[in-house]
């Protein structure tokens, strides 16, 4: 599968209620449409994607003084959230030569990632600006 192909949605607290409370995967992006974080909402997350995504905009990461500020999100409801998460992370790693900034900072929470052995120059996961 390709990366998450949905367009970015700018975060607004009122609209966040429409994010589903199910399991799935998501990305957090900055102003320029750069992916800051790839995450997954698993089976123990009390409010699923809604809780996880909202947490990035209202929690400590949103106000930690980092120049990279979260502005938008996109998600995918997916029952195979763990394997899809691994796929998105591996695709990003191989296409961009590294993990998203916030994933790098939280390496201890990552699953073991493999390699796709893709040739250099494979396009990054698709997606526009927020």
């Amino acid at each position, binding site marked *: *599968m390709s990366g998450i192909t949905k367009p970015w949605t700018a975060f607004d607290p009122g609209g966040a209620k429409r994010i589903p409370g199910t399991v799935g995967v998501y990305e957090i992006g900055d102003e320029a449409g750069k992916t800051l974080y790839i995450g997954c909402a698993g089976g123990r997350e009390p409010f699923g994607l809604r809780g996880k995504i909202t947490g990035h905009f209202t929690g400590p990461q949103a106000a930690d003084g980092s120049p990279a500020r979260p502005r938008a999100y996109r998600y995918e409801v*997916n029952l195979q959230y763990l*394997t*899809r998460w691994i796929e998105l992370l*591996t695709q990003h790693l191989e296409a961009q030569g590294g993990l998203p900034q916030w994933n790098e900072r939280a390496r201890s929470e990552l699953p073991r990632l*493999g*390699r796709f052995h893709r040739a250099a120059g494979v396009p990054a996961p698709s997606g526009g600006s927020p």
Partner: protein
Amino acid sequence: MDFLMTDQQRLIIETIRRFVQDEIVPLEAHLDPDAFELPEEEFDRLVGMVKEMGFWNLSVPTEFGGPGLDLVTLTLAAEEMSQHRAGLYAPCYHVFGHGGLAQLYEANEDQRQRYLLPLIRGEKHAFFALTEPSGGSDPARAIRTTAVRDGDHWVLNGTKVFISGADQADFGLVFARSDPAQGRAGITCFIVDSDTPGFRVRRIIHVLRSTEYPCEIEFDECRVPECNVLGEVNKGFTIANDRLTRNRIPYAAGSIGVAVAAQRMAIRWAKQRETFGDLLAHRQAIQWMIVDNEIDLRTSRWLTLEAASKADCGEPFRFETAMAKVVATEAAGRVVDRAIQVHGGLGVTKDLPLERWYRELRIRRIGEGPSEVQRIIMARDLLY
């Protein structure tokens, strides 16, 4: 036949049972319900415990440093190791060791040093690549990946699907057609390093299983040295087939294990849950489900141990293995289904492991040779 356990078997089984209950199940309370690996520090700690117990790589023969246990004991052990949430495809999260790919026991001395022994020590990971888009149940005809000799190398071209762990592996066993004029006598097994140019993982295939996701891989002018031929040229099918038959026995046992755990949960729930003023355990509808579960479990266990016992005695065991594989995987699916029914709505939530077992067990009727192919194997013996 006498399947009374020996003292050694009883000790092994009781030790593994305690380990699962005391070490694995409590950890799972803190993991995602679909988790298939432990945090690194927990994995290392438990591997250390297992090694200290002398239980590391139970399935490895003595000549490669393992205890060389018989198949009956390994079958009993497999049933115990799978009795937790991730147990069907990640029994005890592999802290007892992977045991290596049994096909690699055919390796020559050089290959043993480079591949088999590092695999057994847990230093390397490997994949097994047989199935192709053209089919997996009849590999002798379905394999279209080609291997053409070019000097002291073989050039591989083709695609394989449903290859577990290919994106994590250091090397793989790849079966390719080296003689297009032959059927099963034209297949060769190659050891392919994952960093060989021309090898790549095309995608992850998302399936019902939460554990050990499969991949699609491809070989594009992938050059493999002659010294990486496993066994003899054109004899690869025999290597694959013999070991696949043997592996179906612990495969059946793992299915029984999760069904045992589901039955235990169903009984516990029936004895505590009240409806309309009485316990579920007092309802005939529930009693019959519990009894049918027990019939399925005991039938499956008996047939699986019979297959293992025949293999240990050096008797033909292909028929018995096919029957055990069909009965155990189909019965386990029914047991978990009934256990979910006993639990009602709670049974389909991720709060309990039942929904994961239900999903993953469905694959077991297809993986390692579907039920229908096993029935073909038995029909051949009965009719021809």
